[in-house]
């Protein structure tokens, strides 16, 4: 269990040679216990050449998941009596996966025999509706989908509402996931986050649009999507979200189980829409990281005043014991006085709570051999919490 304690930190402006402005909008720092993991204690410096030709960017990038599928949970009992399948694309693939109870690792799960699967349309049983059947054994041989089988519908049966039944013995209470994958679908759900890294308490905007593939335009939808957060441990938390322009906004629930080192949370969205009389169902998800402010850069970083500088002074305020890396990209000037990036430098220290003046070491050999001249500058100063695998600041 992480110990959480707020520390009020006065923001101090130090009289350093300014090359990089510090971010004054950082939240209060928190004190967390040291993670239960092997954390390096030695100070390590590393610089590497980087290409002066390739453009690099540390700006946070968004992510869009374009989904042509949906999935839902059902039981053995429901599968025996029949579950509704909404197909919007001819030739859809249906995957059936048996789930395992978390506390029943030894229990054998009965995967579904694809030869026992029947398909009905308008209450009529279809004759030989599948063009491809894959058994549990075939998936298992390639270590791909556990306890799973798959069936591909013949194109000739088109789209619409179908009923899938399993004519076999299944445990009534056994749970299954039914996944309908519609490759080349005309309707796809676009779920987008503007970035994938957030600080605890930050508001998150997302957009969820059903688009037609042929025009790439959003179509009007009915109702609000269902949205929830999936924690790394598999817990599902339904979200209350508000409309914010053409996006939706929510605050991350504060009672989420903490992630282990490096694990991510997921935003899931489920939609169901009627388009030209056809029910189109889609699920989509995007992963994101939630970090806690365990340390921050104070004041401005300053490069050594030298023809060939060997370090940059950086001041850190640390609230949580752990290992922190400061890094930056070093630029030099070419003959046309154009500033070009040529070196990525990093220094990591194991630090206890308090104020620390650390040095970001630069490799003077790389500087001398770069073919670039002073003035040398640093940009993209970053602070990472290596103990907790969290991005804390990027300037």
């Amino acid at each position, binding site marked *: 269990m992480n110990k959480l304690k707020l520390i009020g930190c006065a923001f101090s402006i130090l009289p350093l040679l300014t090359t990089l402005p510090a971010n004054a909008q950082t939240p209060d720092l928190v004190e967390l216990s040291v993670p239960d993991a092997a954390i390096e204690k030695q100070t390590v410096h*590393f610089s590497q*050449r980087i290409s002066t030709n390739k453009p690099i960017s540390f700006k946070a*990038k968004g992510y869009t998941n374009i989904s042509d599928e949906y999935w839902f*949970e059902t039981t053995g009992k429901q599968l025996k009596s029949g579950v509704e399948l909404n197909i919007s694309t001819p030739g859809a693939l249906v995957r059936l996966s048996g*789930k395992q109870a978390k506390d029943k690792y030894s229990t054998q799960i009965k995967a579904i025999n694809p030869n026992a699967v029947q398909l009905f349309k308008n209450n009529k049983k279809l004759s030989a509706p599948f063009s491809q059947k894959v058994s549990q054994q075939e998936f298992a041989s390639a*270590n791909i989908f556990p306890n799973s089988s798959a069936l591909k519908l013949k194109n000739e049966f088109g789209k619409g509402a179908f009923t899938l039944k399993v004519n076999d013995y299944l445990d009534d209470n056994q749970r299954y996931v039914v996944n309908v*994958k519609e490759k080349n679908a005309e309707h796809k759900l676009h779920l987008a986050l503007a970035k994938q890294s957030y600080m605890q308490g930050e508001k998150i905007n997302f957009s969820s649009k059903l688009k037609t593939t042929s025009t790439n335009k959003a179509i009007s939808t009915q109702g609000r999507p269902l949205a929830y957060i999936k924690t790394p441990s598999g*817990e599902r938390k339904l979200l209350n979200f508000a409309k914010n322009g053409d996006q939706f906004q929510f605050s991350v629930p504060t009672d989420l189980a903490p992630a282990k080192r490096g694990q991510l949370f997921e935003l899931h969205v489920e939609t169901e829409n009627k388009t030209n009389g056809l029910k189109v169902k889609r699920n989509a998800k995007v*992963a994101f990281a939630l970090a806690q402010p365990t340390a921050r850069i104070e004041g401005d970083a300053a490069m050594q005043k030298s023809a060939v500088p060997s370090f940059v002074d950086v001041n850190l305020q640390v609230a949580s014991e752990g290992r922190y890396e400061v890094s930056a990209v070093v630029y030099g000037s070419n003959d046309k006085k154009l500033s070009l990036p040529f070196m990525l430098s990093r220094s990591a220290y194991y630090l206890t709570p308090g104020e620390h003046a650390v040095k970001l070491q630069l490799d003077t050999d790389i500087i001398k051999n770069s073919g670039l001249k002073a003035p040398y500058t640093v940009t993209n100063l970053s602070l990472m919490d290596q103990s907790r695998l969290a*991005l804390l600041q990027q300037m």
Partner: protein
Amino acid sequence: MIKKIAGTLLSCLLLNFSAIAAEGIAFIHGTGHQTDAYNDYWTGDFVNSVLQGLSDSSKYTVINCNFDQYMWDTQASGCLAAQLTTFINDKNITQLTLLTHSNGGNVVRWILSNPTSDSRYPAIINKVTKVIAIAPSSLGTPLADAVKQGNVFESTLGWLLGYGTDAVSQQQVSWMSYYNQNWLLGTSGRPSLPTEFKNIVGSDVDSAFWDGDSYCGGYQYQVALETTQNWLDSCSDGFLNCSSQRGAGTEWFTDIQRTNGSEPLSHHQSRRDCFNLDVIIRNDI
């Protein structure tokens, strides 16, 4: 005359350097907890064929680690760093080629991208001359997402979908997008890796039972891989889209450009001596 003497001296220096340089290769497996990767993951035929490219074929190691864990875990990159350090020190390796398959490329990229997180990493990085990444899952795979679908539980019941290892979670597409943006180098827009990272891309799966080529590496795998193409792009090796395999570093070649008979390499065939792959790699190390 001066030029001639300088040339002779340079030749001597180069000869001496190659005489003292000790080249080695490490075979680094993909997802899974390996204890005998030589037999179970690569097969001796593949390893021994590749080793013919070394001047001293004893200077190799086959890594056995737990790559079911996240790439940063001590059992993954920590274990890899320990075995590489031992190999480098025991064999006095000065120039090291890393040959990776699948998720092994990500574990190696973790070390190359996070040199300050472990005091052993800089010494390893300084010895690595190149990484040959066979079918690396650099941008993840939609199959990992599919495996994790529905993998939620209500706290009272606790139902899970199997094969939910940490490595599978990590290789979900949007997860890898986050890790590539924040923790890994070598993808588009990010600083380059500190050493060459060149990819071999598998582009298709042959599973026709009448085609003998389908049987290289085991036919039973091919049928399942053909099916998984439904979740993947038209260019994929049955596990990974070509775009993922090309997502970090530089492309060395796509299978059909260099293999015998222009045969594609499925994800399982790209760690076997199929269609001259072993010889192509041997001639490059």
